[in-house]
């Protein structure tokens, strides 16, 4: 690697990760002032774990992420199977577009339109509506990840299973799904992080008593940043990193020839 390439890479990484690094460093700051270093301390983590409302929000976030990721994984996998294994059907192109569209849709638009829908349906806004909204957001991502694997999955494996007397359901259960499992798991983790991260859509569709962690943090920041927020954010970064690495590890493993 040339000196220029190294420098460019270094600057790029600095640009991407310097803010996060600062956040992580200041979460261990003994001082109560965010921008003044007062020595190493874990006290903000201690305070964090005493903060009842924040912990409650974290719990809500985890529950929402789990539920919405499960729904998105189910729907996304079904969509991928329909797109990848049902041959050509009427409206296939349209369906493909419809599955992908929520991924590029501005979150404000998604949030607003979901809000209008929930109001129109007379649904009580709360944890349930956030789950539905996040599932909507993540289904397309799961579909894309699963479909990518399905496209490279040797179709003769499914034909061989059918040839050996397995009906369509048994082929799906014993051959297709097991071979897609890493991609499905990766899709689940992706959906989980998307939900965990989301502030915009959740803000639109949440109701009383349904405050997610990002919403809680955001409202606290408006009152002023304190190192406790840094600590909470650091933990979120750590969790998301672990999940993202697991997802890419799952995708890379069993790389199907």
């Amino acid at each position, binding site marked *: 690697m040339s000196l220029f390439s190294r420098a460019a890479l270094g600057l790029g990484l600095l640009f991407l990760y310097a803010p996060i690094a600062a956040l992580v460093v200041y979460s261990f700051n003994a001082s109560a002032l965010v921008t003044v270093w007062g020595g190493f301390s874990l006290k903000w983590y201690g305070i964090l774990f005493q903060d009842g409302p924040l912990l409650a929000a974290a719990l809500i976030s985890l529950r929402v992420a789990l539920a919405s990721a499960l729904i998105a994984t189910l729907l996304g996998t079904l969509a991928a199977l329909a797109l990848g294994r049902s041959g050509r059907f009427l409206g296939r192109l349209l369906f493909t577009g419809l599955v992908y569209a929520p991924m590029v849709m501005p979150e404000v638009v998604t949030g607003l339109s979901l809000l209008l829908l929930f109001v129109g349906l007379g649904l009580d806004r709360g944890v349930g509506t956030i789950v539905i909204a996040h599932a909507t957001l993540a289904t397309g991502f799961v579909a894309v990840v699963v479909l990518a694997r399905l496209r490279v999955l040797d179709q003769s494996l499914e034909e061989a*299973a*059918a*040839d*050996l*007397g397995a*009906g369509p359901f048994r082929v799906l259960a014993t051959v297709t799904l097991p*071979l897609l499992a890493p991609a499905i798991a990766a899709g689940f983790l992706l959906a989980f992080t998307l939900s965990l991260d989301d502030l915009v859509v959740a803000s639109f569709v949440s109701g009383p008593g349904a405050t997610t962690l990002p919403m809680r943090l955001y409202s606290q920041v408006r009152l002023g940043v304190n190192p406790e927020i840094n600590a909470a954010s650091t933990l979120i970064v750590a969790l998301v990193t672990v999940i993202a690495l697991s997802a890419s590890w799952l995708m890379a493993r069993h790389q199907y020839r």
Partner: protein
Amino acid sequence: MTVPDHTEGEPLLRIAGLSKRFGAFAALSDVSLDLTAGEFVCLLGPSGCGKSTLLRLVAGFETPTSGTIMLGSEDLAALPPHRRPVNMMFQFYALFPHMSVGRNIAYGLKGMGMGRTAVADRVAELLRLLRLDGFEGRAPDTLSGGQRQRVALARALAREPKVLLLDEPLGALDRSLREETQGELRALQRRLGTSFVVVTHDAGEAMTMADRIAVMNQGRLVQIGDAASLYERPASRFIAGLLGDVNLIEGRIAGPAAGAIQAVETGFGRIEAATERSWGLGEAVAIGIRPERVTLVAGAAALEGRITERTYLGDRLRYRVTMADGTILRASVLSSGHALSPGDPVGVAFAPDAIAILPP
């Protein structure tokens, strides 16, 4: 195309007028083929000739545009793949990578109403039959190519199909293993009495293994017969060239000689050839003669030429003989005899039954 009646009793598999179109492309056109129980048939042809499509139609992975596929008195076309009593061995084996060898072989046995011990016994029997003892717990991707091929064969044979379809079963093996496996496959088929339909693009492989070879080209079945009849009496230049080296010479029918012998006028002289069909006087034809059926004689002969090249091949000598009009004939003779040298004049003779008259 008429199929020579090679069968004893009712055919097991009867394919009649089968066609398959993919959009505007005719992958298969009006193919008819009968298969007797216990017969070993090879579908031979270049890639894209429709042989794999034919196999996939029988297995049920494609639906025919027209035509019927009867197994005994049962119409297969109405059945989905998993209800057809035929099994297929796939070109790249399609072994389930997430299952052990034993579970791969047992896959087809589950759902047949067999008990656990019956399944285990059958798997053990197949492992023994294909010399795979001790491999039961191994994952497919830890096996060699030859072992994978045998696992695929065991899995396809597990349900005791009446007809086994094999798509290029030896295509992924290296050359030496391939020749060894040809013999094994043939012996296995004999032992089990299962009808085999093997797709191959290798004429030598087809000739080694098959009872009958069905030659396909451009979606059509162009000739069917045993190796000798295809080799000796090909129906076209394409088939003559597919089965081995051949001299193809342009000519015209000069009229009948004695009996079923026709005289053909070529650029370097008149050649007599045995033929079963009738040809019009003056009709343009090609004659095909195998290099080993060209007889070289020293001294005066009706047809004369000159040796222009000699290649030593161990057991055989290969000559290139340039005839009076510049036509080059390839001749292959046993190398034990007297060797001719480039520049030597030579007489050329053909036995009438060694020559096939072909459409131009």
